[in-house]
């Protein structure tokens, strides 16, 4: 049984000029012990999709979904109150800005304690012991002193560790990390990623890593979902994605990375920009920027096709012996 299963999730927001389709047709499946990365540029809907899973979007958002199950429980049939209980319990989330995710008015210990109180309960003494234990496993030195520290007394790296401790308070089965290291320095980023991987293994959690950094993906993920303009364009195991990308967008994105580009003065680029609400093309959303686009791509949106463990939304995939049409 999969830990998280999402079928055909779409999210739209009302704007002055009608509905804006932020997420369109996402399929996800995460098992215990899996590390899934969702990569995409800004506006690709990667965060919005996860916020929809966590039920954190404003009520004006229109969310449609064929199936949304966490740990076998059907979220679509669940009352809102029960769903809220799931957050922080079975599923936890950490965010990009550790400094603004912690409440500056309360001590770190108090905030972690609160998370435990809500989900696990227990006596004050038991809870305090658990807080200290959590601070220790996320690698915060001198937990007893840090228990009483306020967020502003800690560095960015320490705050993110505290956030992780809080997310782990109720032994979640699934942890969603939304750009957890983007605001941190390289050496601290390495520490935090290492910590997340270690915890994921020891606790047997499923981990969803939302990021735009291909380097982080390559070094941590097992499965990778690539998003473009709200759509899922490709899903592959990490090795395949980096060595034989099928979608032209993935391939072009990887080619444009300074460390992967061929030697020379200029980098290969993707012309143009991501389509906005007003200039969405008729066919494939990537077709105006795609060097492989044909007439069919401009006329009709390619469907998302499943092939064993891979998903793909393209009529003319690259690096594939056999072309499979939808």
């Amino acid at each position, binding site marked *: 049984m999969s830990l998280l299963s999402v079928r055909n999730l779409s999210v739209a927001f009302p704007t002055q000029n009608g509905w804006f389709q932020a997420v369109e047709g996402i399929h996800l499946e995460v098992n215990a012990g899996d590390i899934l990365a969702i990569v995409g540029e800004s506006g690709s809907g990667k965060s919005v999709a996860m916020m929809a899973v966590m039920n954190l979007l404003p009520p004006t958002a229109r969310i449609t979904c064929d199936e949304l199950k966490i740990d076998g429980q059907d979220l679509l049939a669940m009352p809102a109150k029960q769903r809220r209980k799931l957050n922080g319990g079975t599923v936890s989330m950490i965010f990009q800005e550790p400094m603004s995710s912690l409440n500056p008015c309360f001590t770190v210990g108090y905030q972690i304690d609160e998370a435990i109180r809500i989900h696990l309960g227990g006596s004050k003494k038991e809870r305090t012991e658990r807080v200290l234990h959590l601070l220790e496993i996320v690698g915060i030195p001198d937990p007893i002193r840090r228990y009483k520290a306020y967020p502003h007394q800690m560095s960015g790296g320490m705050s993110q560790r505290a956030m992780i401790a809080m997310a782990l308070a109720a032994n979640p089965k699934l942890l969603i990390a939304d750009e957890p290291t983007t605001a941190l320095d*390289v*050496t601290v*980023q390495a520490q935090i990623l290492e910590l997340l991987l270690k915890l994921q293994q020891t606790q047997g959690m499923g981990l969803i890593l939302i990021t735009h950094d291909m*380097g982080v993906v*390559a*070094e941590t993920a097992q499965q990778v979902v690539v998003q473009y303009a709200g759509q899922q364009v490709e899903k592959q195991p990490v090795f395949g994605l980096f060595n034989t990308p099928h979608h032209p967008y993935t391939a072009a994105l990887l080619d444009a990375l300074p460390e992967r580009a061929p030697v020379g003065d*200029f*980098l290969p680029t*993707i012309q143009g920009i991501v389509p906005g609400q007003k200039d969405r093309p008729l066919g494939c959303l990537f077709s105006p920027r795609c060097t492989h686009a044909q007439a069919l791509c401009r006329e009709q949106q390619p469907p998302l096709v499943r092939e064993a463990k891979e998903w793909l939304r393209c009529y003319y995939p690259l690096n594939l012996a056999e072309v499979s049409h939808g």
Partner: protein
Amino acid sequence: MAEVLRAVNLQQEYRARQGLLQKPLMVRALNGVSFSLNAGETLAVVGESGCGKSTLARSLTLIETPSAGELWLAGKPVNTATKPDAALRQRIQMVFQNPYGSLNPRKTIQQMLEEPLLLNTPLSSEQRRAAVADMMSRVGLRPEFAERYPHMFSGGQRQRIAIARALMLKPQVVVLDEPVSALDLSVRAQILNLLTELQQDLGLAYVFISHDLSVVQRIADYVMVMYFGRAVEYAAAQTIFSHPQHPYTQALFSATPVAEVGEKRERIHLQGEPPSPLRPPQGCPFGPRCAYVQDICRKEVPALRELNGAQVACVRAETLNEPSLPNISARLL
């Protein structure tokens, strides 16, 4: 090639208030940085937040006058003690990290791009208009968009506007403060290519401030690694990427994730975080996090010295075992 920028022992101090009644403490954000840069070359300044790289940018562009040290622009000394000469100031311009904050939301592109000309040249309004149109097409923007406001452009286009503004006065040196780190991946390459193209055409010298080593490796001629307000290693890009000598440089390279899936490489595990400028450590500032630290390191702050074609601020650099090179530098050569 002609030297266009030289910094000698630049220092920048700030006053840090501790409490209401305590004496304010002097904090050195920049602690003696020296380098020289030729026309058409790029010096990359690398380091983590708080290492002094942004302070360096502010000192070089004379937003803040350095508290000590010398600055030479195009062979002329910049008087850092008094208000800098306007003509000299025009020769060094800057591009900021965040194109959403660096463009005035209430001004059109035309107004923003012609401001430098309006303030520094006797050009007529038609001449200015022509110069703006010329510069816009040069950086890949349609000149018809001159009357538009910044919010009507995407992040990449805004950064093109910011670059155009920096070039309006035909500077010789451009300080680029993380110019692509706020941009999306697919746009990043476009802007980097534009910068390369402009450098080749106009013979610009770049001071490229960045934390992204893969970008630095791509465009830098020289690299200066900074830690705690000092340069810890300064060398030609090829030298430093193929043979990093300072333990911090090695750790930094090793911590940078690389977008390639292959054999797992050994990481250098760096413990802790950079020290607080209010409580500088004894001796080498990297000492508390360094795996090779010995008593000699705690005695005094190591100075930069020549070693294997690079300048390294580590007393033990010769004795260190070279770690297995991170992929990132292996691929450069």
